[in-house]
């Protein structure tokens, strides 16, 4: 069991799920792959199908239409899979919270393992969030 989690922390395949965002967070995610931050040296890779995903980065505010489909897509990931809420909209629907079309933040839809706040969060903040998630998982193992 611990080998599972250990291997998982060394090779995280990330799926980017955009639930109607403004795309600022998405651009910052793509920045992580550029030479300046180069997240591949930690074994983190961006993959195309949600079934291959170990971590799902959810950006955007979940409006009434999107949250149903979002739940369906997240359920299709192979367990164990971490759900990471990226950006203020996914963490707490901060800016669009009082909109007529807005009802949920990611917490209401599925269990979230990490929150990375920011509008948009800097790539350094994202890396810090992922590292914190890895450390929390490893610490939970030691208990």
């Amino acid at each position, binding site marked *: 069991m611990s080998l599972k989690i250990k291997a998982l922390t060394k*090779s995280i395949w990330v799926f980017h799920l955009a639930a109607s965002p403004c795309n600022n967070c998405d651009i910052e995610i793509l920045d992580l792959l550029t*030479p300046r931050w180069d997240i*591949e*040296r930690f074994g983190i890779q961006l993959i*195309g199908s949600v079934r291959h995903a170990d971590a799902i980065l959810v950006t955007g505010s979940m409006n009434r239409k999107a949250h149903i489909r979002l739940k369906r897509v997240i359920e299709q990931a192979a367990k164990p899979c971490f759900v990471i809420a990226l950006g203020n909209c996914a963490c707490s629907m901060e800016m669009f919270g009082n909109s007529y079309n807005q009802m949920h933040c990611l917490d209401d839809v599925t269990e979230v393992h990490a929150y990375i706040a920011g509008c948009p969060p800097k790539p350094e903040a994202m890396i810090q969030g992922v590292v914190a998630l890895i450390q929390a998982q490893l610490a939970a193992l030691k208990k």
Partner: protein
Amino acid sequence: MGVIQGIGYLAGGFIVAAVVGMFAHWFDRKITARVQWRVGPPLFQPLYDFVKLLAKEVVVPEGASRFLFLSAPLFGLAATTVVSALLLRTVIVPGDTFLGDLIVVIYLLTIPSQAVILGSFASANPLASLGGSREMKLILSYELPFLLVVLVPVIKAGGTIRLGEIVQYQATHGAAIASISGVIAFLIALICMQAKLAKVPFDAPEAETEIMGGAYIEYSGAALGLFKLTQWMMMYVVPLFLMMLFIGAINWRQTWWNLVFAVLIYIGILLFITLVRNTNARLRIDQIMKFFWARLTPFAVLAVILAFLGL
């Protein structure tokens, strides 16, 4: 050759192919990262990827045919292991291979692609079927020039189709690549290898819909891990096969310098694959067919004719 010996060769072939294949995959990713001015993954990254995949759950889609879906990766893995074992035996005992093993190797090397097709159609997903149908077209495209250029070392070695005899012939008479027909044939074989390994620019079947995963879209866990392992093992087996046919530098019984040269040439071929992969855009499937049939095949035919004429 006894059963124990056979099992030994299969196990040895599998282990060598897996280890060298993982190294080849890491090499590809590392050189890609370097070319893009990045750092790239650590050396054991493919191993971490594989172990992690073994630990994830295998999800079988509801409409999929369960048996085919789960067994398709095994077909590819089995075929690659057998080829690796055959090549290992040819390296160790070149004189004792069986008649027609060249044809067996060529035939077995198509099975991993067919396993991908089988798996993609068993997935009950329209995007996967699209990837599978493109894989079929890709096989049709590159097999033609590939088979033609494999004829060249056969002709040069005097018409034998024993792989061991081809290797031994080259040890005494010089490598098949040391001639005009050999050079043309080797270059065409390298390009066909790029397609066989499904690397850019020929990864249309597995990557056109890679935005969603292509043929592998519904796979997860150990099944996906076995597919990936097969891909990595092919990166060891196919260059080795080409080296045996054209360069014959595997004959380590002559002098152990040959072994060093063999390793260097293998790394050179890996470098070729990676650099071509990094500097090219992906081709559409109709462009791929036109490229292989209209542009490469005439040169392959030319190479065969030149080989007949002794050049």
